[in-house]
């Protein structure tokens, strides 16, 4: 660059004459023009080499993933962990039945004391609000009390100390105490005033989301109670609160009595699984020990070599002997897997009998569960319990063959490792049991967020493009276009920052508005959700889609529009029946490129998506958008910095990177093909 600049300046023409126009300039037998040509060619190849290296490095790390992952899966099977997890699945399904029924039970028990509970909740909320609004005076008061206590202790010490009483010290301390007490009285008065003022404001009544309204009479009493409790002369509750608590308890007790049968069923349900759980935890310990032996075998040669190398390099004979001894201690022999797995095989029969009892018991108890419930939540959760019972039965049936046919040495193809990665439903790392690398939760998270972003961004971006290109006047055009391009320049980390500090909270507040409850997923409990990330990404996608759509609209030959207008069509008819359909493939390409941009976006989803590694629960329908999720880009950013180079986890993250790479290449390629075709027309 600097060469070319220098040469373009007029002052260097003299120099040029000497260099460029002298015939016969050669450099290793090449003419000057060739040298220049090779210089540029060399740089171009450097660029191309770098771009090839990208593919190579990603592929290198990722290619090693599958063999390693395969080895891990094999160890998982050989150690018997796979078997133990089958039992674990059955227990988990059982827990779900129990948990849903349990929630239903409590919903029923609590149903008559809702008002009391609401009052208690309101009182807690108001107290918390008041305390945080008057935090400074609180601290002052607390400090005063602490100081007073210290002074009194000093006084006691002084009195108890042997020998003559130090009169001056005594009088000083007494004076101090009097002063402190006086100060506490003033602080308390001040606090009381502050609390009264604060209690009058609406801020104190910010109960957060989902609070059930309470009567105005109760409200006044809550105020009273808070005013009382804000001054902990005694640690007691206000009589009204004590009363409410007792009433709530009494009502719950009454209800629980009525539902005693339900409770018994629940208790029986819980204890039914206990023998199975004991078996599970016993086997788990055994399998974990086996796994440790298998793992330690893998590192054994390296460890022995390291000790030997250490011994080689040291000069100290004692140290050398120690290291050699340590090298000798390393066990390299493969563990006897059949022996290790013997307890597991012998437990198959025990498991079968236990499972039979459990299944019979669950079937019976499931029937004993009440059919209907008084509350909405009760009905919903009983239904859930019913659903989970179905799943429990299916799991048991499916696992029966798996458990019977399970062999620790059954062969495992390399494709199984690929399948476990691409279709795996769990991404569990740094586990004490086994690390699972399943792409599905991350992929669905990324995909869902991108789809939401597109659904929101496309209408706005396309209509803005149509408006600017076809309808806006000159002034608007010169202002809107750069403004939207400006949005594209906002760094994503800034948007993420905005999402976490401002937008998340705003969105949650909005979701709690009474008249927006028809939107699925509202009200939202979380700040960091799929919706939050999706909306921010939509904002990021707008400039890309807008600019490219506008280009596409621009490329529509003017003759088409003129013809249409000449035929008597209105402006909008021309736009929507002639121009947009002609540009449609360009618009599709724009949307695809927008998609490519947001699925690869990292910082926004890392900060805002909520980082929950679970396939979103689609049973909630569109409400799924209120859940948190994790993404492919997010997981790389979150975990890459913290794993060992070359470990399985590290490679799994590179593999995720490769998937992202492939997706974005595919999307870009398709978009460019569409654009190319468009240009040919």
């Amino acid at each position, binding site marked *: 660059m600097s060469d070319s600049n220098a040469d373009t300046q007029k002052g260097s023409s003299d120099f040029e004459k000497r260099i460029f126009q002298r015939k016969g300039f050669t450099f290793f037998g090449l003419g000057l023009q060739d040298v220049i040509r090779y210089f540029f060619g060399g740089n171009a190849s450097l660029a191309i080499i770098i771009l090839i290296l990208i593919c190579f490095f*990603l592929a290198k790390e990722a290619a090693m993933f599958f063999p390693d992952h395969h080895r891990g899966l094999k160890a998982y099977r050989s150690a018997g962990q796979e078997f133990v997890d089958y039992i674990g699945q059955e227990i988990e399904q059982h827990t779900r039945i129990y948990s849903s029924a349990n929630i239903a039970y409590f919903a029923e028990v609590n149903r008559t004391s809702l008002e009391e509970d609401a009052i208690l909740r309101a009182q807690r909320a108001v107290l918390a609000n008041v305390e945080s609004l008057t935090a400074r005076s609180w601290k002052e008061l607390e400090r005063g009390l602490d100081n007073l206590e210290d002074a009194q202790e000093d006084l006691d010490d002084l009195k108890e100390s042997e020998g003559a009483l130090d009169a001056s010290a005594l009088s000083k301390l007494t004076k101090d105490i009097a002063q402190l007490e006086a100060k506490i009285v003033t602080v308390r008065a001040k606090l009381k005033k502050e609390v009264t003022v604060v209690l009058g404001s609406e801020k104190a009544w910010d109960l957060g989301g989902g609070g059930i309204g309470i009567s105005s009479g109760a409200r006044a009493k809550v105020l009273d109670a808070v005013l009382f409790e804000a001054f902990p002369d005694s640690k007691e509750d206000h009589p009204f609160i004590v009363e409410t608590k007792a009433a709530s308890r009494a009502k719950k007790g009454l209800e629980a009595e009525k539902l005693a049968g339900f409770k018994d069923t629940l208790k029986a349900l819980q204890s039914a699984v206990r023998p199975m759980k004991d078996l599970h935890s016993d086997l788990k310990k055994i399998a974990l020990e086996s796994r440790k032996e298998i793992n330690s075998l893998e590192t054994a040669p390296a460890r022995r070599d390291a000790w030997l190398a250490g011994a080689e390099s040291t000069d100290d004979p004692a140290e050398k002997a120690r290291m050699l001894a340590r090298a000798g201690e390393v066990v390299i022999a493969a563990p006897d897997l059949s022996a290790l797995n013997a307890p597991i095989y012998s437990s198959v029969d025990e498991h079968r009998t236990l499972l039979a009892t459990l299944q019979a018991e669950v079937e019976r108890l499931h029937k004993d569960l009440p059919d209907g419930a008084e509350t909405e939540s009760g009905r919903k959760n009983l239904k859930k319990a019913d659903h989970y019972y179905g799943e429990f039965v299916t799991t048991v049936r499916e696992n029966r063959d798996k458990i019977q046919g399970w062999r620790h040495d059954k062969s495992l193809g390399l494709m199984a490792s690929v399948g476990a990665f691409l279709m795996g439903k769990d991404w569990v790392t740094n586990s004490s049991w086994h690390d699972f690398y399943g792409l599905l939760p991350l992929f669905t998270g990324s995909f869902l967020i991108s789809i939401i972003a597109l659904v929101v961004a496309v209408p706005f971006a396309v209509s803005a493009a149509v408006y600017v290109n076809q309808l806006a006047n000159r002034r608007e055009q010169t202002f809107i276009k750069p403004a939207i391009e400006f949005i594209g320049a906002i760094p994503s980390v800034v948007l993420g920052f905005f999402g976490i500090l401002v937008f998340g909270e705003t969105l949650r507040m909005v979701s709690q508005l009474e008249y927006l409850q028809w939107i699925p997923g509202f009200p939202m409990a979380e700040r960091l959700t799929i919706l939050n990330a999706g909306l921010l990404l939509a904002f990021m996608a707008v400039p890309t889609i807008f600019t490219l759509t506008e280009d596409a609209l621009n490329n529509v030959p003017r003759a088409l529009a003129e013809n249409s207008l000449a035929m008597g*069509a209105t402006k909008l008819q021309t736009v929507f029946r002639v121009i947009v359909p002609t540009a449609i493939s360009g618009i599709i390409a724009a949307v695809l490129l927008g998609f490519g941009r947001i699925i690869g976006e990292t910082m926004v989803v890392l900060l805002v998506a909520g980082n929950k590694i679970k396939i979103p629960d689609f049973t909630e329908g569109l409400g799924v958008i209120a859940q948190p999720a994790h993404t492919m880009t997010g997981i790389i950013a979150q975990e890459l910095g913290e794993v060992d180079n070359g470990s399985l986890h590290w490679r799994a993250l590179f593999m995720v*990177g490769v998937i992202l790479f492939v997706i*974005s290449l595919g999307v870009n390629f398709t978009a460019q093909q569409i654009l190319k075709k468009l240009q040919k027309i």
Partner: protein
Amino acid sequence: MQSVAEDTFVEEEANPFATKAIGLKRRDQIVSILLRLGTYFILSCAAYIFLDIIVKGAPVVFQAEAPFINTDFFTQSPETLMTFETASGDEYKMNFSEYTEFKTRNPAIDIVDEHSHAYSGGGIFGPLIGTVLLTGICIVIALFVGLTTAIFLNEYSSKGKFMDLIRLAIMNLAGVPSIVYGLFGLGLFCLVAPVVTDVPAPRAILTVPLLFTDSVLSFEGWGTCMLAGGCTLAVMILPVIIAACEESLKAIPMGFREASMALGATKWQSISKSVLPYAFPGMLTASILGITRVAGETAPIMFTAALAHKDKLPWQDIPTDAEANALSQSAEWVGGFFSQSVQAMPYHIYTVAARIPQSEYTKPMQYGSVFVFMVVVLIFAALSIYLRAHFRKKVQW
């Protein structure tokens, strides 16, 4: 929006252009109002974000009395902020460095209710410098390689399938997510790139002895450092720069080159005198656009260069061997300079957004950083948008 519009015409399927009913006109109006609303909604969202950041961030950066700018915020690096009260009820808020000084000056003071807020004190000098360095390294490398590649592709290379393939690859790589470049940068620059050293690290994958010296070329990587980060960013931006530069070269009419060649100029003379000067504006715009994008990127530097806390500025205390000669000392200094991690604005913002809570004490740092960062990035963005519009208007042939 579209569906609304299409519904409008369904009823008129028989002959859509036939009638000029008043209803149709009104529909036209309604649809165009909707389109306009959509457009302005986008702009108002942007305005909301900008205003939020400006309203909360500007007071941190500007102040009422001369010099009107909070110089401390620009000249100090991030620090822990201490807040405390004294027994007499006075409140204090100061950076940790001042705090220790304060305590030594007033040994008798009775401090109560003391809180520390990580990353919330000081200023953003360190991260700003880091970002400037990273962007600088990146742009120098990316422009050099990108420009020469573009010149080669457009001026020297013969047309053919192979070149088309390369262009296609470059176009496609421009859309690869930045985090993937981060992975690549970590894999190549931090862990494999060659270093000249006497003592190769055990993790080196290959060592090549250099003739006539004691040193070896060890492929052990540069570690997490400024140079690795700059190179990663350069690789990320390279496809964009190549594409943009080639575009601006392509825009120069063939006649310019032909005329020059016809007058007897050599190939290089015609490129340097008749093509590059006219392509310069386009390339300038491309490089400024590159700066805008690179300065805002976080993902590629997360693992390759950035650091949350660093109490020295990059040029301070670089170790050199005092006994060596001046040349090798300065080489060592340059090496040491580029091989250290730096703080960077985007990573700093990530840290203050994710790692520290929001309170009245942390907000100034949070919003101040974002405000400054936004202003800097957007000035570059505005510059590139302006330049493009300006040159487009001016240069016509």
